[in-house]
């Protein structure tokens, strides 16, 4: 049997679980591991400029591909820097393994140089974590970590590796376990057939149904089953922020995103629905508004692989625990086999009602926002232009703020995994490293980072890593000269007292900044030049481009839930509400 050091075993085990890219940043406690990386060529290590970004990139790689993302950080500050990234992945249930180096075991507990209790610090933000104590245990721990991260409800797993465990002078036999078995962890593989039967019956009897699908459909690769079921039923579909793309954004049955900034028609249809099929969604507070006023006449079928998501905030009438693809598939099978029919006349009436809502206040009605003109570029139009220029096929990684909501509303994602954003934690700084992760996964694809002048400054250092690793992402800054989303709340709830949301002429010159990193910078202030500039930007296939686009500084994101209230209580503009 082959004898390897702990550092070598770690890298070998990562290649055995099929990791292609490891996003990381070195340091003292990780030196043995980095030396093992140096002496091999199977695993591609990507040196980032900050551990947070390394973890975001690994996370986004996972979101874009469905594979498990992998990151490596050193002990102490490396580990704490990784926490925001881990928490971001945790909140969105992203399969990821983060390896953190640790001080040697004999020093643990002594407040040694760069010692931090990573298991303790990361505990509330991980699906699970391990500290490896012997080189013999590394391979099995890695196998378990990847298994846990990727099965059931996915999530990040931390593996903490003390330096002595990777000692190059201590070589042990390498053996990668063929199978992982954990007696305390057995994710559900099928839904309860009785419950599925009840759900199908309820679903077929619906007069005002809606399918509310979330990130779980993307994560669970259930988009195909969702589409098939929705088509067979001809029911309206709404997606959460995390679920966009699971059902095609351009489909007639798609009524748009729901929730705080959801469409008028999606939120109103939810409110009036008699049956809601919730799948891979978690009734998040950004979706439901006040739960006691949530969808008063609806019977709720809730499918989720994680039982704790069911009935957490909103009671389910028919809970079904199981993987979304399998359960949706079973539902469709039952409908096909028994040739069940929907209530045609009722559904026709329902569609008529929904279309009426859509035509009244939908995102594409003329009065939604004032049109762009000359020097006044509306942020919505930037996204529409991006959609047009990239033919709706780009991977769009977003930061957090108004620009994120405009992107979610106006870029019509037809495929799952095309839209990459931090929904649960809402992490500013996610966008650029996330775009890098997607670009690494799909080198030839158009990858856009939709961001604000605020958010982009939170991981701006990665412009250097883009150069080093040839990741030609296109950075689209919707520059409204402010922390726009916070400012919007200050407008709406604090009498426009703009407390610390303005920069007082301190913004960098983004064109020069791009150039300083060897990239291309473009500034756009005229709407008439927006589309041609963007064409130019995406034509620069192998360059990173920053487009600094001056947008209307006073625009708000609408619709917006009136809180506390029901799903249908919304502001539709600064002056109209439902």
């Amino acid at each position, binding site marked *: 049997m082959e004898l390897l050091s702990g550092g070598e075993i770690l890298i070998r085990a990562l290649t055995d679980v099929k990791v292609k890219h490891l996003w990381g940043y070195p340091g003292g406690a990780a030196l043995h591991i980095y030396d093992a990386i140096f002496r091999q060529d199977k695993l591609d290590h990507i040196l980032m400029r900050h551990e947070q970004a390394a973890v975001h990139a690994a996370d986004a790689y996972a979101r874009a591909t469905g594979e498990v993302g992998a990151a490596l950080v050193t002990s102490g500050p490396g580990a704490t820097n990784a926490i925001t990234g881990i928490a971001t992945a945790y909140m969105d249930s992203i399969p990821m393994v983060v390896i953190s180096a640790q001080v040697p075991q004999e020093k643990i507990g002594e407040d040694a140089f760069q010692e931090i209790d990573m298991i303790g610090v990361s505990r509330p933000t991980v699906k*699970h*974590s391990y500290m490896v104590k012997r080189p013999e245990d590394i391979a099995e721990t890695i196998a378990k970590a990847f298994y846990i991260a990727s099965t059931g409800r996915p999530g990040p797993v931390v593996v903490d590796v003390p330096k002595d465990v990777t000692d190059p002078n201590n070589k042990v036999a390498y053996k990668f376990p063929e199978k992982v078995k954990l*007696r*305390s962890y057995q994710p559900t593989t099928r839904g309860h057939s009785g419950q599925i039967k009840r759900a199908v019956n309820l679903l077929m009897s619906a007069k005002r149904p809606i399918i509310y699908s979330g990130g779980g459909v993307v994560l669970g690769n259930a988009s195909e089953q969702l589409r098939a079921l929705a088509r067979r039923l001809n029911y309206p579909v709404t997606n959460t922020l995390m679920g966009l793309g699971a059902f095609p954004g351009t489909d007639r049955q798609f009524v748009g995103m729901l929730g705080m900034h959801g469409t008028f028609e999606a939120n109103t249809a939810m409110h009036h629905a008699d049956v809601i099929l919730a799948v891979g969604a978690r009734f998040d507070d950004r979706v439901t508004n006040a739960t006691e006023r949530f969808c008063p006449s609806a019977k709720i079928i809730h499918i989720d692989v994680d*039982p*704790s998501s069911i*009935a957490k905030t909103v009671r389910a009438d028919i809970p079904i625990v199981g993987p979304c693809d399998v359960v949706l598939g079973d539902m469709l099978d039952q409908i096909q086999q028994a040739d069940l029919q929907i209530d045609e006349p009722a559904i026709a009436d329902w569609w008529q009602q929904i279309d009426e809502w859509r035509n009244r206040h939908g995102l594409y009605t003329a009065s939604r926002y004032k049109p762009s003109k000359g020097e006044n570029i509306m942020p919505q139009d930037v996204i529409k232009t991006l959609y047009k220029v990239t033919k709706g096929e780009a991977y769009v990684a977003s930061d957090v703020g108004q620009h994120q909501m405009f992107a979610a509303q106006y870029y019509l994602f037809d495929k799952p995994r095309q839209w990459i954003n931090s929904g649960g934690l809402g992490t500013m700084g996610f966008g650029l490293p996330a775009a890098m992760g997607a670009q690494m996964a799909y080198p030839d694809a158009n990858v856009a980072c939709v961001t604000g002048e605020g958010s982009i400054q939170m991981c701006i250092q990665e412009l250097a890593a883009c150069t080093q690793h040839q990741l030609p992402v296109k950075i689209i800054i919707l520059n409204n000269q402010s922390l726009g989303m916070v400012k919007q709340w200050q407008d709406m709830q604090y009498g426009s007292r703009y407390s610390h949301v303005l920069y007082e002429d301190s913004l960098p010159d983004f064109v020069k900044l791009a150039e300083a990193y060897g990239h291309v910078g473009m500034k756009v202030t005229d709407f008439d030049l927006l589309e041609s500039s963007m064409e130019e930007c995406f034509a620069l296939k192998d360059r990173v481009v920053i487009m600094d686009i001056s947008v209307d500084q006073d625009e708000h994101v609408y619709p917006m839930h009136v809180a506390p209230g029901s799903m249908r209580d919304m502001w539709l503009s600064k002056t109209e509400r439902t």
Partner: protein
Amino acid sequence: MKRLISVLLENEPGSLSRVVGLFSQRGYNIDSLSVAPTEDTTLSRLTLTTVSDDHTIEQITKQLNKLIDVVKVIDLSEGVHIERELMLLKVKASGAARAEIKRSVDIFRGQIVDVGPTTYVVQIMGESTKLDAFIEALSDAPILEVVRTGVCGLMRGEKSLKV
């Protein structure tokens, strides 16, 4: 309503802190907690009491089950079960109070396990309410120290919590 939750847990480093962390992280309260390895040393058995409504209890059991180290969870208060707690109590005992305290200990079927010139250490075992009642019964005697193990419990009859 008071609930008694029993958890079979992998006896791994850090597994207890995951359980305790879960409670503080999600805003659930723990009134008492007892934990020790079982006859199978790879497993720990943990018993905790919490005062929660049905909805919260459902979430607590689901969230506990979600922890990778948790092998099994049951809510003992859902069925017939036995629960016990042990209390050691140091009480000032001098003069006439000595006999008085001794009588109370007898009534509660406790034992005096240490005798000092002016103190007793009393051991009482039973359900938590009995322990509370004993403290109540001592009303006049100055209590110097109380230590309780927290509740442990198991189901009556044939059923048992096993892997």
